[in-house]
């Protein structure tokens, strides 16, 4: 699409990592004063594309043009100099330094060979005001909320006279009001002729703000459409690569198994709470039941999982396991009560990447039996073979490093690890995040299967459809408060959304 007002053009870009073709022959064009949404599932290649443009990765092939002239950044230091600024999903600021300094790091105003702190602070205060923020710029950035930090990061990005602004999932930690404010800023920038690349997972926001949508899938370009031409369903189909009907391959009717309110109560929680994590809440989970936890990111879902597993200690409330009061002081204690946790952050809290599939699977059971009763190699092999087969873990051998497996298979290894130690209560925190559609369905089926065999399951997921599909009951969280509990017959998307939205009005 050769156009006269295109500022950034990418043609036939490819990038390969060992074993993965992250980008293959991708085209991308950004025009002046355009908000361009970049969409795709996890692993589609959005982040890679951005990182190649900003010079964090080197391209393997293709060309990139800025104002029609070829360019390539050797390092992220160069991108801002040619007018490309980026704000990343994780707020990338230096927590200990002041807001003002964070805005001007690397380009502080100098006077007589020294940093001119007065001018710096004054300029920063002015720049911050442009975004309708009124904060003390001399305070450390870490003393402000994540939302404000995100706006500070944007202030920094804009201050370099950026012509291209790349926003990589800037709204994932913002609430509705904060997002609205950000969008006002974006519209203002757009009217000033800045080209904006906007990466997000939230469909609604794409339709609110963007003009054009580029969809990637598995490192390839699927299509470029203007927003008006692309209805939501079509967009989802482009992202998933299949029609919506096909996606729902989870066994229908299986949900009944997740409904076992009459069965013996396994875990009862009374007024459990921790300051800064979750307000006191009550909860009951029965044997053979799947309890879903729905809520936005940061609503306290993971915090509940951590409290129940003894990672964080509750400051108030009581816990009863099978009718007996229990104190959860450490993960070890929770495990001894039959709890298991598949944590949200798979890489840093779940798998041990350097160890083999076999070792990862037997570790939890081994920790339970103790140091001196080592499982015999034969026993280990038996267990590992059983779970590799049962969960269909795709690995070349049990002795392969877990770090070399795909995300979905890593998740299965973590599940296998706990199944091997035969827990009564399984907490799954975002077990399907970042894994492909097929593996997702398998894990959902597995959850239902386990609950049918009598296991109590706490299932946390950002994807409402999943929660609805698998859960016998759903607890809804908002802003670190448990706001509702929906029984089986009331579980549907609109009820959950209403429960989340209700308190928002208050």
């Amino acid at each position, binding site marked *: 699409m050769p156009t006269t007002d295109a500022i950034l053009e990418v043609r036939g870009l490819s990038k390969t990592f060992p074993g993965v073709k992250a980008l293959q022959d991708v085209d991308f064009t950004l025009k002046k004063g355009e908000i361009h949404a970049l969409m795709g599932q996890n692993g589609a290649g959005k982040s890679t594309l951005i990182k190649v443009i900003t010079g964090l990765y080197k391209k393997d092939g293709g060309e990139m043009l800025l104002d029609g002239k070829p360019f390539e950044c050797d390092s992220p230091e160069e991108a801002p100099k040619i007018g490309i600024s980026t704000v990343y999903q994780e707020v990338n600021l230096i927590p200990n330094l002041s807001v003002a300094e964070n805005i001007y790091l690397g380009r502080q105003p100098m006077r007589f060979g020294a940093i001119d702190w007065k001018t710096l602070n004054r300029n920063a205060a002015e720049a911050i005001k442009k975004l309708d923020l009124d904060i003390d710029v001399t305070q450390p950035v870490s003393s402000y909320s994540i939302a404000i930090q995100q706006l500070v990061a944007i202030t920094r990005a804009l201050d370099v006279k950026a012509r291209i602004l790349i926003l990589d999932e800037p709204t994932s930690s913002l609430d509705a009001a904060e997002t609205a404010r950000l969008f006002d800023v974006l519209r203002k920038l757009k009217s000033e002729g800045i080209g904006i690349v906007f990466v997000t997972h939230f469909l609604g926001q794409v339709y609110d703000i963007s003009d054009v949508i580029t969809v990637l899938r598995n490192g390839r370009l699927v299509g470029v459409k203007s927003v008006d031409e692309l209805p939501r369903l079509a967009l989802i189909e482009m992202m998933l690569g299949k029609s919506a009907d096909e996606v729902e391959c989870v066994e229908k009717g299986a949900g009944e198994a997740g409904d076992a309110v009459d069965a013996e109560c396994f875990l009862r929680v009374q007024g459990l709470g921790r300051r800064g994590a979750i307000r006191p809440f009550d909860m009951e989970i029965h044997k053979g039941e799947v309890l879903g936890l729905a809520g936005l990111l940061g609503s306290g879902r993971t915090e509940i999982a951590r409290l129940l597993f003894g990672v964080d200690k509750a400051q108030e409330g009581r816990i009863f396991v099978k009718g007996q009061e229990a104190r959860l002081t450490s993960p070890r204690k929770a495990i001894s009560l039959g709890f298991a946790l598949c944590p949200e952050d798979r890489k840093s809290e779940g798998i041990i990447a350097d*160890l083999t599939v076999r070792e990862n699977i037997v570790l939890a059971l081994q920790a339970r039996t103790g140091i001196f009763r*080592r499982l015999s190699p034969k026993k280990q092999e038996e267990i590992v073979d059983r779970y590799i087969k049962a969960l269909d873990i795709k690995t070349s051998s049990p002795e392969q490093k877990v770090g070399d497996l795909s995300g979905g298979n890593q998740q299965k290894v973590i599940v296998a690890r706990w199944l091997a130690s035969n827990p009564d209560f399984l907490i799954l925190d975002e077990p399907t995040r970042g894994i492909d559609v097929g593996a997702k369905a398998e894990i959902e089926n597995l959850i239902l299967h386990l609950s049918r065999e009598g296991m109590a399951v706490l299932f946390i997921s950002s994807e409402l459809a999943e929660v609805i599909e698998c859960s016998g009951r759903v607890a809804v969280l908002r802003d670190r408060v448990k706001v509702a509990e929906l029984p089986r017959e009331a579980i549907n998307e609109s009820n959950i959304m209403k429960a989340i939205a209700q308190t928002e009005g208050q």
Partner: protein
Amino acid sequence: MSFNPACLKNENLGKLVWPLVALFAIVVFNVIFTPGFFNLEIKDGRLFGSLIDILNRGAPVMLVSIGMTVVYATGGIDLSVGAVIAIAGAVAATIIRPDYVKGVIEYGEMAPLVTVIGVPLLLALLAGLWNGALVAYVGIQPIIATLILMVAGRGIAQLITEGKIVVFIHEPFQFIGGGFLLGLPVPIVIVAVMLLVTYLLTRKTALGLFIEAVGANPKASQYMGIRAQLIKIATYMFCALCAGIAGLIICSDIKAADANNAGLFLELDAIAAVIIGGTMWGGRFTVAGSMIGALIIQTLTTTILTRGIAPEVTLVFKALVIICVALIQSEAFRKILTGRLAKTEAGQS
């Protein structure tokens, strides 16, 4: 005994190949240039020869390397081993001659061997407990936590001997450093026993697996119910125990406690041995590799000595060897190297 094929992974064998080649090269050098390098003699039922000598001299390094290996595998490091060696020696010597530092030349009542050995080793364990507690419970970086004891510990050793070199005669104790058992010098026997104990402890129980898990991902290990903190403390205590034993051997061998120089720079030798052996900083460990590493270090030292170069200068060689091995293991280095090679090849063709 059932044999687990998993023990003999290609990964592990491959790791040992390069250290073995290096050791072999040094040995070949010696065979050519040092006459009688391979000669072994049996005198009075005791083995003598250059090889035995290297093993005997290398015993302290090998012992400390065993301990350092497990600490290194948990993602830690122990700089205090040299100081612990000095403390162990100082305590042992002071027990034998309690009043020597006050200028009393006469020995008191002959201290029983159990006390002479037991008390220093208990103190060594205490030192390890201190290190481990700082790392595991207080959360101080291992390098700093053990640096405190590295310097202050030598100060403590100096205090015990009041800055003097305590010389002594104590027949039973001298057996540890200078005696023979089954025709072999006792230090070699001690190393062999410690190796066996370590093998049984780490590979015949789940301890080895737990150490690797804790080193590779402490958080995930904790979430699995592994007592990561206890394991870390145990490794530091084990390392200090090894250092303590090494300290007794050194002290018994020279029949004196020298708080200033005993075990000085030994931490470098041990760390070098561990790195050369292929143990990961936080993750997989191989005691066998560390032993090969220790032998390389010791053979190198002996070789340099027989060439007539001052022993202190070996520091330079050792430092260079470590940095080379660390570079070869560094992924970034390999990438740059292969990248350059590919480029020059492309340029030539």
